[in-house]
């Protein structure tokens, strides 16, 4: 658009660039202006280009030659601009002019140049010019122009915009008229302008008074109403939602609310006392209290007053406390929520109503009686502006307003008439000034009142304090809002409300503005409170109940809720001296932790995927700890909790769907409760993460390789680099080393990568080469797994190549298996027969509570899915029933006490077989193949033979070679292809039956952890113990399993 119009003035740029930027050229352009004072169709382009060129010269002059400004000023060239503007010269010229003005003011860097431009008040004339704001482009350029000007505001320039004598501040008053413009970018610009103005007003008393006395009440009351209307719309959106269809709109409304809160906070932190008083008063009494807080108290009292639903109000209040930290505001708000009394509230409202309805101190949410524009007009030189009424996109709305409030309007009109009579600018009508004073007096009275009551309340004794803390019995304290808040935590069905309550409590306790004493009265300590001896028992109990719920298999607690509960509980009971939690509460918490262990065991499987999931979950949990502020920015939690991932809601903010997610959830619950429990007991975490950075070999480490097997190779990286290295395989890692020049037999690590994330494939036409890729697991949802090594390794001959391949593949399997064993240890899986007694003893306290559920679970599944079971068995016959038994052996063999990865002596044979078991277990565990048809096992006595360790290793090697370790989908597919769906949780049915029957058998616990085994198959196993001899410590556990299976067997028969 602009690009196309190349008039003759700018045309010669290339050649005559020297002349273009000169005083002479400016003189010439001035000449052009004087010749073309009237805008016509013909000279329009010429004029536009002239103005543009003048701008360019001015900017050049600003940087190079100030004489051009002298000339500009001397000739009053701005008048020409204004003159052109006033000729209704049309959109094109308007836009051009505004654009060049933008550029001009944006690029002027010298103060003096700026003064030149701003003198004579021409800029203010442009600001109040009646542009056609219905044109979005003019609107955008205009508001950008104002924004650019506002960025130039400072102590000196402000006098060009604010005229003390005439009480004129066009830049500000014209801008705020667009505070509710439908175009968001315009609203943002308005906010920017106001913030820039407020910042400057700090140093300018007269201006500050003007802003407060003439504009603050109208602006803030309208702003507050605007916010409130959005909130009601938001609430409506939540109420009318069906199947999350309103989410798009909802998230916009929530973001809008957040924008407003941040804006208000930005005003408040400018810390202009005058303004903050007015703003705080409006926010509290016109919005937060009447609309948000009173909606907490969900009775039908209050009749017609606007209300929002409980979750919305809790959610919004949390946002308020998370964002706004202005002490007077948050303290008053917290005071009402924590100690508010309903009777007081109604009394106050009535009292207020008796006053005139135009006072800001009224505690109710009502529409301002007049539009902002009108208030501003009233507050200033009336009449004059009335005549000058600008075409405004809001005109229609104004008329509606007039219809709605005819009485006020009449009054207002009368006042206006009076104002018109009053005539000139700056003369206040007496009524007006009285009104403002009254408002201020009213305010101070109120705040005194509030102060006195709070002083009174602060004189409570300790007894009263603790009574207050135990909210349920607080008969003498009628605190409906706090009661409501606690009550919302109790909901047994879901955590819809609970999450908001926790957020609110968190936000309040983390709010820097709130007086800690206020919180202490309900024994809600601020984080890092110096010393505390007690904590809020009812709250702690509710938190523990939530944790306990979360650890139930069908618990309806979302991960976000659980994490927040943990945070809050820690905040309550952890002191610098340690944990002050009562034993009974600690015991309950331990119970919850135990439950979570049981929960993971439900899903525990000896699969690759489980390990990857386990580590992924740990990583994402530690790398992205809960950020409550971000959580409360998400509109999706406003809708009732859902389980379907199709909504696009973050996993932690909804219930799990399907077995993968249930497994992930169980793992997370386990992590959270484990970490909480350790922290409360003051014990360090020693088991997690499974791979600790500090244990790993790092690049540039110097290793003693005297007793290591090294294979020399040439590494060719993807980008063509070629280096000679020695390949070494460690427990968890493979590394590429270079001999250390200073010490014989030592090597410097040039690269180290985790074996578990490695892929090895052969190279088709070169028997001496291997392709090796090691991925770094994705750290954020935005990034993909990133290959940290992608190279071809070339060995000296094919034998070494095969050895390397085997070593790597074996290493990979072994590394993974060791980690699986560590997980088993974490879950108190009985690894060594002798320690099983202990393991069971520990679990017994909770298992009694736990058993009925599992029994139920089994019964339900058993009855509902018999066909599935059958069909699965049919396909499962490839899996030796034996593999299951092997798995059991594997889990039971390594010592529990040694928790660390068992020594490599964990028998290579055993490792081979167990790894195979893992994949076997995959299939069997994924199906209720536990039933494994009693007939099957006896029929396949020869199966153990192919079970020879070496062969198994090879099987797995090929698998490992062809599989990217992180690709769950793929490996799952591989397994499903030959076997059965892999991620159905390991089920309990028959095992729990076992538990029921033989409640005290030690091995029961172990059985619950492994891929399900049917008593029949167990029994059948007992018949073939010799087959399992390859595994080192197998006979013993087998014997026990048999023992426990036997009592069941007859029952089933």
């Amino acid at each position, binding site marked *: 658009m*602009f690009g196309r119009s190349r008039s003759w003035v700018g045309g010669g740029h*290339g050649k005559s660039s020297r002349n273009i930027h000169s005083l002479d050229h400016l003189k010439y352009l001035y000449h052009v202006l004087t010749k073309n004072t009237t805008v016509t169709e013909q000279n329009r382009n010429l004029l536009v280009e002239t103005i543009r060129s003048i701008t*360019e010269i001015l900017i050049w002059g600003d940087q190079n030659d100030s004489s051009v400004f002298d000339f500009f000023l001397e000739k009053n060239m701005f008048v020409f601009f204004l003159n052109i503007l006033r000729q209704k010269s*049309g959109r*094109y010229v308007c836009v051009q002019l505004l654009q060049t003005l933008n550029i001009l003011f944006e690029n002027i860097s010298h103060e003096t140049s700026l003064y030149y431009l701003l003198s004579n008040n021409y800029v203010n004339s442009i600001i109040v010019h009646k542009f056609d704001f219905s044109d979005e482009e003019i609107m955008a350029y205009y508001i950008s122009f104002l924004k650019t000007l506002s960025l130039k505001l400072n102590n000196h320039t402000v006098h060009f915009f604010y005229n003390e004598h005439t009480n004129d501040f066009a830049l500000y008053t014209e801008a705020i008229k667009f505070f509710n413009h439908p175009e968001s970018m315009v609203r943002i610009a308005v906010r920017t302008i106001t*913030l820039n103005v407020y910042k400057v007003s700090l140093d300018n008393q007269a201006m500050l008074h003007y802003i407060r006395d003439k504009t603050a009440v109208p602006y803030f009351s309208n702003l507050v109403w605007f916010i409130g209307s959005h909130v009601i719309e938001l609430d409506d959106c939540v109420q009318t939602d069906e199947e999350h269809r309103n989410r798009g709109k909802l998230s916009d409304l929530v973001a809008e609310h957040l924008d407003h809160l*941040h*804006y208000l906070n*930005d005003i408040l932190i400018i810390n202009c006392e005058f303004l903050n008083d007015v703003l705080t008063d409006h926010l509290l009494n016109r919005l937060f209290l009447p609309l948000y807080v009173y909606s907490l108290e969900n009775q039908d009292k209050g009749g017609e007053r606007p209300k929002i639903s409980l979750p919305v109000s809790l959610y919004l209040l949390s946002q308020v406390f998370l964002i706004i930290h202005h002490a007077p505001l948050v303290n008053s708000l917290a005071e009402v929520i924590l100690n508010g009394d309903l009777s007081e509230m109604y009394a106050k409202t009535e009292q207020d109503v008796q006053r005139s309805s135009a006072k800001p101190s009224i505690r109710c949410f009502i529409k301002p009686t007049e539009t902002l524009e009108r208030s501003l007009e009233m507050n200033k030189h009336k009449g004059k502006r009335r005549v000058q009424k600008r075409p405004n996109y809001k005109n229609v709305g104004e008329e509606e307003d007039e219809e709605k409030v005819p009485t006020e309007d009449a009054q207002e009109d009368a006042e206006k008439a009076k104002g018109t009579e009053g005539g000139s600018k700056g003369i206040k009508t007496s009524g007006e000034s009285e009104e403002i004073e009254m408002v201020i007096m009213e305010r101070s009275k109120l705040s005194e009142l509030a102060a006195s009551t709070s002083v009174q309340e602060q004189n409570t004794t300790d007894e009263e304090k603790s009574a207050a803390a135990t909210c349920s019995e607080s008969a003498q304290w009628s605190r409906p809002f706090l009661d409501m808040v606690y009550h919302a935590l109790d909901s047994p069905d879901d955590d819809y409300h609970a999450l908001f309550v926790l957020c609110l409590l968190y936000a309040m306790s983390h709010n820097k503005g709130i007086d800690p004493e206020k919180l202490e009265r309900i024994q809600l300590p601020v984080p890092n409170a110096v010393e505390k001896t007690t904590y809020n028992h009812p709250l702690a109990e509710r938190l523990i109940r939530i944790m306990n719920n979360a650890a139930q298999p069908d618990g309806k607690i979302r991960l976000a809720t659980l994490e927040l509960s943990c945070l809050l509980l820690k905040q309550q009971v952890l002191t610098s001296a340690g944990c002050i939690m009562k034993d009974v509460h600690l015991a309950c918490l331990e119970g919850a932790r135990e439950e979570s262990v049981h929960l993971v065991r439900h899903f525990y499987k000896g699969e690759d995927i489980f390990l990857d999931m386990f580590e992924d979950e740990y990583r994402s949990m530690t790398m992205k700890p809960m950020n409550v502020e971000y959580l409360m920015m998400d509109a999706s939690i406003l809708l009732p909790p859902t389980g379907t991932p199709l909504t696009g809601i973050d996993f932690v903010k909804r219930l799990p769907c399907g077995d993968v997610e249930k497994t992930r959830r169980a793992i997370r619950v386990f992590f959270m409760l484990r970490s909480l429990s350790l922290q409360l007991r003051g014990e360090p975490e020693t088991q997690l993460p499974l791979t600790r950075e500090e244990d790993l070999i790092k690049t540039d480490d110097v290793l003693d390789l005297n007793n290591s097997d090294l294979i020399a190779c040439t590494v060719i990286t993807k980008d063509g680099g070629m280096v000679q290295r020695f390949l070494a395989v460690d427990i968890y890692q493979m590394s590429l080393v270079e001999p250390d020049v200073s010490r014989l037999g030592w090597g410097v690590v040039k690269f180290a990568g985790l074996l578990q994330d490695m892929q090895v494939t052969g190279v088709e036409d070169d028997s001496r080469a291997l392709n090796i890729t090691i991925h770094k697991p994705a750290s954020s949802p935005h*990034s993909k797994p990133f290959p940290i090594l992608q190279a071809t390794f070339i060995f000296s001959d094919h034998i070494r190549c095969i050895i390397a391949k085997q070593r790597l593949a074996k290493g990979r399997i072994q590394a993974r298996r060791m980690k699986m064993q560590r997980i088993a240890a974490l879950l108190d899986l009985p690894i060594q027969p002798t320690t099983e007694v202990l393991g069971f003893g520990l679990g017994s306290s909770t298992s009694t509570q736990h058993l009925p559920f599992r029994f139920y679970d089994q019964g339900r599944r058993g009855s509902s899915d018999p066909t599935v079971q059958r069909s699965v068995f049919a396909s499962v016959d490839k899996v030796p029933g034996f593999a299951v038994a092997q798995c059991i052996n594997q889990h039971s063999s390594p010592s529990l006490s040694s928790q660390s990865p068992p020594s490599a002596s964990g028998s290579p044979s055993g490792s081979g077989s167990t790894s195979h078991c893992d994949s076997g277990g995959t299939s069997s565990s994924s199906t209720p193949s536990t039933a494994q048809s009693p007939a099957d096992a006896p029929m396949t006595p020869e199966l153990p033979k192919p079970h020879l360790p070496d062969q198994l290793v090879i099987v797995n090697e090929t698998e490992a070679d062809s599989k990217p370790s992180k690709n769950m989908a793929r490996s799952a597919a591989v397994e499903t292809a030959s076997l059965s769906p892999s991620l159905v949780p390991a089920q309990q049915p028959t095992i729990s039956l076992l538990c029921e029957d033989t409640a005290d058998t030690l091995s029961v616990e172990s059985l619950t952890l492994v891929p399900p085994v049917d008593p029949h198959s167990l029994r059948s196993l007992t018949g073939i113990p010799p087959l399992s001899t390859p595994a080192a410590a197998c006979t013993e556990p087998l014997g026990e399993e048999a023992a426990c299976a036997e009592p069941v067997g007859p029952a089933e028969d």
Partner: protein
Amino acid sequence: MAYAYLFKYIIIGDTGVGKSCLLLQFTDKRFQPVHDLTIGVEFGARMITIDGKQIKLQIWDTAGQESFRSITRSYYRGAAGALLVYDITRRDTFNHLTTWLEDARQHSNSNMVIMLIGNKRTQSAFPWTGIICIYSHKLTSLSAIFENVDLESRREVKKEEGEAFAREHGLIFMETSAKTASNVEEAFINTAKEIYEKIQEGVFDINNEANGIKIGPQHAATNATHAGNQGGQQAGGGCC
């Protein structure tokens, strides 16, 4: 001014990387950068054509407002595209990209198209000429070589680094120079193309103006009002 769509852009990045110059360079070519003048602007609009459709780009520079949190977060949300700019001669501006990107991802709608731009800000003794410019136009004059040497000696961020950053974070990448206007056009237009494609794929909810996309009167209006609109526009700004 009839258009099919209006896309709102924002420009983000450290101060002094030449954001406003890029903006002006794109929206108004009459301000030619060849003179030793650095001119920028905070807002601009321009019409482009993609796939035969008139698309209006509205670009808002967020400069100078970083001190107000409310402002930056609102800007992000209202935009369909963002140009994330760093200065290839200032390593620190590149190092801050992660923070900018985090901010952008946090506050913007998830579909926002982000383009990473390694810009060469002006103000050198020799007006800089972009590498791309040199290679493509085969400028072999002595000054061009000087300029190139000059640039390469002051370059602190390699092009490959920019590319790698973009790849890792799923951004489009380009090196530009506001001074010579090289690649500026492409940067804005490619971003628009990406947004346009997303609209075609139905990823963007175009009925929700909060996304930074607006359907033009041409699309939204019925024929009758369409005619009326055109009439009005012709009266207003027919010549441009």
